């Protein structure tokens, strides 16, 4: 019998429905894998009993003949989603011990669809980071290793999700993407991940980082599994003012890798001088694959691309400084009350003790760019440049339907390698941030292995609400890349 932890979401769902194995057997197999994979530090909290309870419900449902779309499928939940009765920390000290009295809309939808929870996945603290080195609960270690055997980053911020999926500690997981936090970790670990159009998934109950950018999405090993998961996660929610009141398309049923009639744009500005030749070569292969699938490939220009990262690093910290003002040591989370301290001192001491260095750095930047005298020069200017970045995409859609780019400028780097230089770390998101600023759906799929044996990803960016187009092009790439590599088990 095949190892149940090697199965995809679709295979688990269909296997449970067909009676090839029980949901309980699947949950037990993954619970054991989670326990055996602790050295990766992918999970902050393990919830094997929840996985088993959902599995038993699925087995009962099968006997009764009323299986749900995700019955029998155990998932990892990024620890940014509030889960009722289960600690939710955003990988921070300030929320250590916080047990929500409510469930996030996205996680609730997944449980309503029959899925079970294996545990809460590690991430960069408050999703601020690109390498999973800012978590209060320690670095996540990628299951992949290069020839030098060093510990590598699984990417960030959804690094617990990417590491766990790649190491078969869950078949799929939730992620959130503010500037690339689903796509870059997916690329670094040889899996697929999709960030839908802003507003497709409710933000209610997700610990907020930058509200105009934050968007939940799916991560799994295959494009089809991403479609299945996203279909369960998306949908209108009156509790989120930016939620889109639109029906959720049948993304899985409409998957089709034939791209005849589709025009794929190749943005000139994404090929800067000094682009890693390996990344460039992968991109060229991607172009050939899409042509082979029937698409026509055209060059397009997104002239404001080079301003996307600095725009992001004004807007995201500005929104973060405002969102994170809620951590005050009064209503929930940590309180640090020095002797004889007044209220203001308590706030300052609590926040100094509760936030990590990168979070403090971003709150400080955000506070500065929003402060009197600097607001227009920084924040308003960034919001205007953001409008120009969005216009670039709108202009591109006049000549193409989708864009193909690399996901990240390099393969996974070693833990510690970029930690000393925040700017070098920020540059990791150079190819993912523009689509985030414009609210567009975008997906990373594995394209192959680089010369050091590490996975590299290709990104598809689509028009607003065209997740289907993104998934279909990603499927065309997946079929032709034939990516079957997996990390050797050393943990």
């Amino acid at each position, binding site marked *: 019998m095949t190892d149940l932890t090697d199965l995809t979401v679709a295979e688990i769902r269909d296997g449970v429905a067909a009676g090839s194995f029980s949901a309980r057997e699947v949950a037990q197999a993954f619970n054991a894998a989670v326990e055996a994979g602790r050295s990766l530090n992918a999970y902050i909290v393990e919830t094997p009993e929840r996985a088993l309870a959902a599995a038993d419900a699925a087995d009962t449902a099968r006997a009764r003949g009323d299986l749900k779309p995700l019955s029998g499928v155990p998932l990892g939940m990024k620890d940014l989603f509030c889960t009722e009765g289960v600690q939710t920390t955003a990988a921070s000290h300030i929320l250590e011990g*916080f*047990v929500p*009295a409510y469930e996030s809309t996205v996680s609730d939808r997944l449980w309503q669809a029959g899925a079970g929870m294996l545990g809460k996945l590690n991430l960069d603290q408050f999703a601020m980071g690109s390498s999973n080195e800012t978590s209060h609960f320690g670095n996540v270690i990628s299951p992949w290793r290069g020839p030098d055997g060093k510990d590598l980053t699984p990417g960030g911020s959804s690094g617990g999700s990417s590491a766990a999926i790649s190491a078969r500690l869950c078949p799929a997981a939730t992620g959130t993407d503010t500037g690339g936090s689903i796509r870059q970790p997916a690329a670094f670990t040889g899996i697929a991940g999709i960030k839908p159009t*802003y*507003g497709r998934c409710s933000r209610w109950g997700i610990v907020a980082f930058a509200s*105009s950018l934050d968007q939940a999405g799916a991560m799994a090993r295959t494009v089809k599994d991403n479609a299945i998961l996203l279909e369960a996660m998306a949908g209108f929610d*009156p509790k989120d*003012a*930016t939620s*889109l009141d639109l029906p959720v398309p049948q993304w899985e049923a409409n998957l089709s890798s034939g791209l005849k009639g589709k025009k794929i744009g190749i943005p000139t500005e994404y090929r800067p001088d000094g682009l890693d030749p390996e990344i460039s070569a992968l991109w060229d292969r991607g172009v050939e694959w899409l042509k082979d699938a029937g698409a026509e490939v055209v060059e397009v220009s997104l002239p404001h691309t080079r*301003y996307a990262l*600095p*725009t992001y690093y*004004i807007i995201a910290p500005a929104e973060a*400084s405002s969102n994170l*003002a809620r951590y005050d*040591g*009064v*209503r*929930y*989370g*940590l*309180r640090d*009350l020095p002797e004889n*301290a*007044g*209220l*203001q*001192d308590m706030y*300052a*001491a609590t*926040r*100094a003790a509760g*936030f990590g260095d990168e979070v*403090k*750095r971003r*709150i*400080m*930047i955000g*506070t*500065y760019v929003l*402060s009197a005298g*600097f607001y227009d*020069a*920084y924040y*308003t*200017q*960034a*919001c*205007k*440049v*953001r*409008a*120009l970045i*969005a216009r670039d995409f709108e202009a591109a859609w006049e000549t193409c339907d989708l864009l193909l780019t690399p996901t990240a400028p390099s393969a996974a780097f070693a833990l510690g390698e970029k930690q000393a230089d*925040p*700017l070098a770390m920020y540059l990791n998101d150079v190819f993912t941030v523009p689509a985030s*600023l414009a*609210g567009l759906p975008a997906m990373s799929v594995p394209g192959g292995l680089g010369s050091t044996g590490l996975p590299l990803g290709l990104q598809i960016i689509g028009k*607003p609400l065209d997740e289907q187009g993104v998934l279909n092009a990603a499927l065309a790439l997946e079929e032709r890349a034939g990516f079957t590599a997996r990390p050797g088990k050393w943990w």
Partner: protein
Amino acid sequence: MSVDINTVKKVASLARIAVSEQAAERLVPELNNILGWVEQLGEVDVSGVEPMTAVIPNHLRLRQDVVNDGDARDRVLANAPQAEHGFFTVPKVIE
């Protein structure tokens, strides 16, 4: 524009984050590096461009003007570091 140690301390105070003298000194070059880098946005011609407020066109919805929650005091207080008599409690603010 660049920040000095006094500006860093002022920003930290606005952000309600206690910083030691050493931490403030360390933050000066860190923040200046980042601010120096984002300042390149100043060279973009944005004349006639409205600042973007919503990435995907959407309209603000109205809902029925009815109470739809409440009666959840104990759940609201459940995670408070200190709660007494059904209230959040904080250090004394009025002498």
